[in-house]
């Protein structure tokens, strides 16, 4: 928090529009890219999920499942790369005036979201194996199946995968709701620091 002593005492560093990634006030371009790519791919994955489960068993349903599996594994790949990035580029600090319970809530939500970014695709992958249906990625190549068809395991994982999906949607609602609250109610920089592009007034790195 070295910047605190350098800026005027009345201005919180996280609200200082001149803050930039160099001082840890904004997310790095890489962190933003991972975040918004994940948003994009997950939106597609959820959209496919809602449509595919309603379809009658047929070739279209199977194709949509395979694209859902493809997007799920992209989410997993992004999560792995993102975690590596995150460990090398720590998140900027939360506003100094945030109450303890809000910090805790933010922490718990972020950790939970990270966990599900890994867990949900992995559960889906094992589920796909247990289904005995080929896992066709990008509509063109098949993933090997190390476990083979297992109806019992599949039935169990369907419940887990679906429950997890609803928990993820709830977490996203909390996460996005909190970000909007920061922007529109608390009027701080918390949302803006994850928005694409250079933050207003920030120095080019």
């Amino acid at each position, binding site marked *: 928090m070295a910047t605190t002593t350098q800026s005027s005492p009345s201005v919180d560093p996280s609200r200082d529009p001149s803050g930039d990634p160099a001082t840890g006030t904004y997310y790095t371009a890489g962190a933003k890219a991972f975040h918004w790519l994940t948003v994009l791919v997950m939106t597609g994955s959820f959209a496919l999920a809602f449509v595919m489960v309603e379809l009658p*068993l047929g*070739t279209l349903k199977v194709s949509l499942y395979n694209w859902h599996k493809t997007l799920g594994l992209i989410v997993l790949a992004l999560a792995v790369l993102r975690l590596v990035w995150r460990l090398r580029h720590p998140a900027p600090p939360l506003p100094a005036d945030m109450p303890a319970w809000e910090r805790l809530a933010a922490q718990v939500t972020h950790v939970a979201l990270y966990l599900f970014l890994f867990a949900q695709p992995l559960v889906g992958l094992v589920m796909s194996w247990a289904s005995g249906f080929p896992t066709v990625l990008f509509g063109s190549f*098949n993933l090997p*199946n190390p476990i083979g*068809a297992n*109806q019992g395991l599949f039935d169990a994982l369907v419940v887990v995968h679906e429950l997890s999906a609803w928990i993820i949607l709830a977490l996203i609602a909390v996460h996005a709701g909190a970000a909007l609250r920061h922007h529109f109610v608390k009027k701080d920089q918390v949302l803006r620091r994850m928005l694409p592009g250079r933050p207003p007034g920030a120095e080019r790195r």
Partner: protein
Amino acid sequence: MRATLLALPVLMPVLIAAAPAAAQDAPTWAVDPENSRVGFVAIQSGDEVEGSFSAWTADIAFDPETATGRIEAVVQTGSVESGSRDRDDSLKGDGLLHVEAFPQARFVADKFRTTGEGAYEAIGELTLRDTTREVVLPFTLAVEGTTAEAAGELSVDRLDYGVGQGQWADTSMIGAEVRIVFEIAATRQ
């Protein structure tokens, strides 16, 4: 060619008379269901998928020495199992086996050829759904005392039998070629 065609009506009564006689002479074999299997290998999205039928019967009369006899196998199509309930439901549905309308598949053969040591061909008719076609089914047979083990497989184009209606006629997800496979252990009666 002409001579052959003319000869057929003459020979026909002889052939018809000879066939049942051969079948009657051939020893009958009782299938040991525990050690027998009737199934298939299909290609789904490029991967091999195996399935089998748990309910089927086979009446077998066959003399390995003379390669004569008669085989009739009846498979209950609704007993199909491929490791996945969803896939089984698709297989049983009207687009594929349509087990409600066609609960049985059938193979009947009464002509045989010896093709090698313990190797034969059964010339018969395969019925899937409502389509019957002549097929030549190669199989091996190993007899030891009163027990015998037979195995064979037959590649068919599922679309020849109408197994693939509507969207399932598309062979990009489920290949046209399906290998019908069997392993039968039997005891001489």
